């Protein structure tokens, strides 16, 4: 049975490896996008401008309440239509397509950005105000305080939930298989259907995901240990 997963024409090993690469690329891109959106969202939620905070809260509440598959299908089906129609307003009369990879990254980034904004906002709030005041009293400039006192503590508090989000994003990427991106689950479907062995290949896909999760857990524990000495003053 192991020859089913070999390299080359007869085996699906190389396809699964390509799927693994695609899954990782998707997850990293979506995670990065989510972090950017989440940081901006967190800062917006903490802003003194109420309309900005309100808008950020609305965004985060909405995208934490919608199913991921719905957002992804909406973006995949509608993005092409909306982009084409919008560009037509500017006189560009071409069809603009959004591929499954891009749609997946945008969808996952936007959805998880909502969760990230809550995490980062919570981490920023959790650092005691006294840290900032004491550092300023010691003569540090605002930038120095942020960079060397506040930011490390924010990161230390946020590191565990951010690590959990990585695993969540990793598993969420499986949804792109239904819009045609060639990830792990996609190849599991294709191989399983064409060889009439769906259980074998879906099990292989599941085992691959479990391996990714396990490795991520080990790496996360390592990273958290590096941050342990920084968890001073704030509640974990």
């Amino acid at each position, binding site marked *: 049975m192991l020859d089913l997963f070999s390299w080359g024409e007869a085996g699906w090993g190389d396809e699964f490896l390509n799927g693994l690469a695609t899954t990782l690329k998707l997850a990293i891109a979506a995670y990065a996008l989510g972090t950017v959106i989440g940081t901006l969202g967190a800062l917006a939620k903490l802003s003194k401008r109420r309309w900005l905070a309100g808008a950020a809260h609305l965004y985060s509440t909405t995208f934490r*309440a919608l199913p991921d598959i719905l957002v992804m299908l909406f973006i995949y089906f509608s993005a092409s239509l909306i982009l084409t129609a919008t560009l037509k307003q500017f006189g560009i009369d071409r069809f603009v397509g959004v591929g499954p990879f891009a749609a997946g990254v945008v969808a996952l980034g936007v959805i998880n950005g909502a969760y990230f904004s809550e995490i980062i906002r919570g981490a920023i709030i959790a650092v005691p105000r006294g840290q900032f005041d004491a550092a300023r009293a010691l003569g540090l400039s605002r930038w120095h305080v942020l960079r060397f006192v506040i930011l490390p503590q924010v990161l230390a508090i946020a590191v565990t939930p951010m690590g959990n989000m990585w695993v969540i994003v990793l*598993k969420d990427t*499986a949804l792109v298989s239904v819009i045609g991106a060639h990830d792990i689950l996609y190849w599991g479907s294709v191989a399983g259907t064409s060889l009439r062995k769906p259980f074998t290949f879906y099990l292989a896909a599941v085992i691959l995901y479990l391996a990714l999760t396990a490795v991520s857990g080990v790496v996360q524990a390592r990273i958290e240990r590096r941050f342990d000495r920084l968890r001073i003053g704030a509640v974990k």
Partner: protein
Amino acid sequence: MIDPELALSILPDLLRGAVTTLWLVAIGVVAGLSLALPIALARNARFRLVRSCAYAYIFFFRGSPLLAQVFLLYYGAGQFEWLRQSALWTILREPYWCAIIALSMNTAGYTAEILRGAFLNVPGGLLEAAKALGLSRLKAFWLVKLPLAARLSLHAYGNEVIFLTKSTAVMSLITVIDLMGAANLIYRRTYNPVTPLLTAAAIYLVLIYLLILIFRFIERRLNAHLAA
């Protein structure tokens, strides 16, 4: 693209799908809780074999995507001739039943972890007091440990139920006609993706908001003794 008339006309179909979604959630909650309790207890059991099995179960269902799990069950079951001949086939060939099984086992994995954490966080003094009062191990569990753990896990479990509700949408991909499935059908019929998906999204927002209100109410009632 956004067609209010269409939105109104498809509302009955979508609401029928929403009923299926609610059934999936309800059965998922009940079955998930029933499975999660023994698994959470097994996580702290005396025998290493029992502990390992519980850990393996939780690792399997939390470490892989729900979509992969349900594909494995629904499409994978058909690979085995002996399974197709057996009595189980009447259940396993139905998408609705596979959805329920996959959802329940998946949420049981997450819920078991929540319960395990809650069990560990029950104040030891209260358990000692129960022992001092002469309550048997079983009575102390049912009357003291479990209710306290339930109250501690309420917030995290509320989040888990919301995740469960969102996860039911994935079942549309194995042809279950829930809210998401109904919206998909309408898209394929009308070639207009925006209106059905947006309308379904609105309904999901309403459902989840109702769930949040319910859990907030329960939390306030059960934690009334903590209120200022």
